[in-house]
């Protein structure tokens, strides 16, 4: 298993993601945003941070990088893609995932450990996360993480089983629609979420529940 972790100017959590991929099992390497060739990797992580300073809109500029073009092709071929926080914003801006992320309801950045209810419903991918009764303890940290989509789109992604994670009741930190913390594409191979599974892979820093998210992505490999 070889993971590729994208690196944009302004990425912050790429080294953490690299480390998490290694802990999840496999090799991992950074992919500079100007690389067009992903070079035979098995899964891609679009990491957190503030690519291009989050200027204009979070993720709006990074989506046009050469590496993101390659990621779109990779996803189109069924390759597993995980977008975390800023990476989730990039995937939404690139139309690889439905919806958009808006500024938090209270206008403040929030850094807090939250419980996530994993809600994978299909049999494809997401094996290790298909535990609707069990919460994952994973930190969230963002200023623009309020998930939003028009009601029809929300109904549709719920009906399709595309809502991958919800904040546990009472723990929605940003005003996200229907407590949605993460979504998948229709095919199930592209997953994005605001909380940071790569910061929940070591008991030393608080939790190891994030490893399950990486396992799920690895399991989505076609």
């Amino acid at each position, binding site marked *: 298993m070889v993971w590729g972790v994208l690196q944009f*100017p*302004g*990425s*912050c*959590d790429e*080294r*953490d993601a690299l*480390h998490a991929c290694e802990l999840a099992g496999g090799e991992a390497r950074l992919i500079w945003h100007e690389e067009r060739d992903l070079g035979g990797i098995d899964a891609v992580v679009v990491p*957190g*941070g*503030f690519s*291009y*300073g*989050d*200027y204009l809109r979070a993720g709006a500029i990074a989506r046009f990088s050469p590496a993101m073009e390659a990621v779109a092709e990779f996803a189109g071929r069924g390759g597993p893609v995980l977008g975390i926080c800023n990476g989730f914003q990039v995937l939404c801006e690139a139309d690889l995932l439905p919806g958009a992320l808006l500024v938090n309801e209270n206008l*403040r*950045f*929030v*850094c*807090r450990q939250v419980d996530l209810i994993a809600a994978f419903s299909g049999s494809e991918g997401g094996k290790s996360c298909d535990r609707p009764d069990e919460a994952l303890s994973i*930190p969230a*940290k963002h*200023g623009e993480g309020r998930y939003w989509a028009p009601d029809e789109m929300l109904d549709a992604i719920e009906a399709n089983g595309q809502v991958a994670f919800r904040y546990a009741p009472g723990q929605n930190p940003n005003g996200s629609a229907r407590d949605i913390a993460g979504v998948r594409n229709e095919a199930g191979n592209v997953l994005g979420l605001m909380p*940071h599974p*790569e*910061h929940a892979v*070591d*008991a*030393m*820093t*608080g939790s190891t529940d994030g490893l399950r998210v990486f396992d799920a992505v690895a399991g989505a490999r076609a």
Partner: protein
Amino acid sequence: MNAPAASSPHRELGLTDAEFDLIVAQLGREPNRVELAMFSLLWSEHCAYKHSRKLLRRLPTEGERVVMGPGENAGAVSIGEAHAIAFKVESHNHPSAVEPFQGAATGVGGILRDVFALGARPIAILDSLRFGELDSLRSRHLLDGAVRGIGHYGNSIGVPTVGGEIYFEAPYEHNCLVNAMCVGIAKRDEMVRAAAAGVGNAVVLIGASTGRDGIGGASVLASAELGDGDEAKRPTVQIGDPFEESRVLECCLELLGKGLLVSLQDLGAAGLTSSASEMAAAGGVGIDIDVARVPLREADMEPFEIMVSESQERMLAVVEPGRVDEVLAVCEKWQTGGAEIGAIADSGLVRVLRDGEVVGEMPVEALVDGCPLYDLEPAEPGGWIYGNRATLGASATAAETLLALLGAPSVASKRWAFEQYDSIVGSRTARRPESADAAVLAIPEADAAIAVSIDGNGRRVACDPYAGTVEAVLECTQNLACAGAEPLGLTNCLNFGNPEKPATAWQLDRSVQGLADACEALGVPVVGGNVSLYNEGPEGPIYPTPVVGMVGELPDPLLAAPSAFATAGDAIALLGPFEPTLAGSELAKLRGELGAGLPQPDVAAVAAACAAVCAAVRAGKLASAHDVSDGGLACALAEAAIGAGLGCEVDLQHLRERGCSPEEALFGEGPGGFLISGEREKLESLAGDGVAVLPLGRVGGEAIEIAAGDRSLTVPLAEAERAWRSLGERLASLAT
């Protein structure tokens, strides 16, 4: 005889007539405009430390772990075989009082640059903040802006903000304090110094382009007392761009990793003027800067404007001529600016050129070391020179008093603030804010961990500058001990009022002596620091506020004890030479009973207690460890209980046998107290060798129950928690 003209530009720039005459004497002629601007900045308090430099010579700066000491961009201590921890604290008080968001943000940006200028990757930020009382709209506005600004910069650049402190006191109302500390890790063989070297080497400016930001900032913003006119100063406020800084940071670390730089220095206060002059002075060389080659953001800037601009996110590097192209290629990779703007010369001069034509020429020594150093004229004031305002009636019961203290903004949980900071990026944060007394970071590179703490209770320093400053050092040491860490080194930021006033001069003198004596006694070297003077508002000086930042080492990050209790049934004890009094306490403040004087701390006894706690934590003997600080033992008990969601039953009889009244035992403050919990036998085994352990009671129940004679109290845990967590709600209900 030099009779200054009626309108003398040097006075407007903050130079005295005598200083101006000295400049003329050293140059052998009158300075031109470029030279006068440069002299006025380098001879300002901010750059020349002219009122504090003599005092700072008292501080111990040497130790076997010291890798870099004062004089470099930051201090550094060794860790493991091959690494070093670099750290420094610096103030950005006056810019923050004018525009809190950008002031605090650029304060963080500046201290980050100081650390990566050494070749260290920043791994943590801590902040020490002071504002006026929360019932002031101005204070809330400054608090809100500063917290947002710190978060904006630190979060965006991906360096975790892992700790800090905030106090609210009326004397900071007009002059808030924003001190930021950065900690970084470096490979020792990749570190560089700031000294320029190698005649003929190129000088390369890396990073953002230069605009008219903060022109005159160092002398106007950093050395003038703030009055009603702060609005007019807004145009000179610097704007921070963390995205630019993150590229500059990665660029510089890549350049240093490839060994492409001879030396590196950040551009801070006084911009190119100070970085070029100081690099030349440290290397004993001269430097030529051609302002026509500096990339500008605004056309038609005057040479003096380019030399003094405080545009952020810039670094100055010395590069061997044959490697300039390689350096510029790395700059391009990171999409940041890189321009060769000058050269190292053997002239001993700072020469400013425009397209090859000399527009300023000054001896490096005159610029950097020529400023006269002044002796203070200290005089102890007759008594308490600050105000008193009672907000808690004398008839309050002990339970009401505890709730009032827990809800006092300086004591209450700062979750509202620290949740706005990314405290975990980098995957090193083993103890997040409020989970332990010190922040704990893993250093896997050296198979070790560090604990970091920042402290400085200005109110207690105001009561007694000597004892209060010793206490600040002791509190840091105690915080580290709770984490199982031994101190490696210390950085400090001395925030004081106008040193030309005898009372402030006395505070500064006594405080520095306290810092020196405490560091000497504890064997902790001072590896760097910063001085911020002239912190005054219309009603007088701020509380004298030496902020101490300390870094310690522990073998394993998981050893650090939590500050909250762990298990119902555990025994609770008080360890250390704690002799609480109400002098200078939070309770004395609430009652409006503050006055001069504090008991003199017994540093050796506290050090022995720290060593005992540190060893016990490392041996896994303690379930929790928390130092007794603001609000006294009752507040420490409440904090440990709230954090655990467990009550406690405690009797203060043994403490009262030390001669304390019930009130002093509950709410009195002083150094040397550790609140520890765990198995009874293990706690008792810590007594001896001059270390006292007093049994207090046990963990359990749903209330904080404290027997203290006629001031015994019972407060339901939920009620205590509501009071302690009230800060966010209070701020949400008030306008900012």
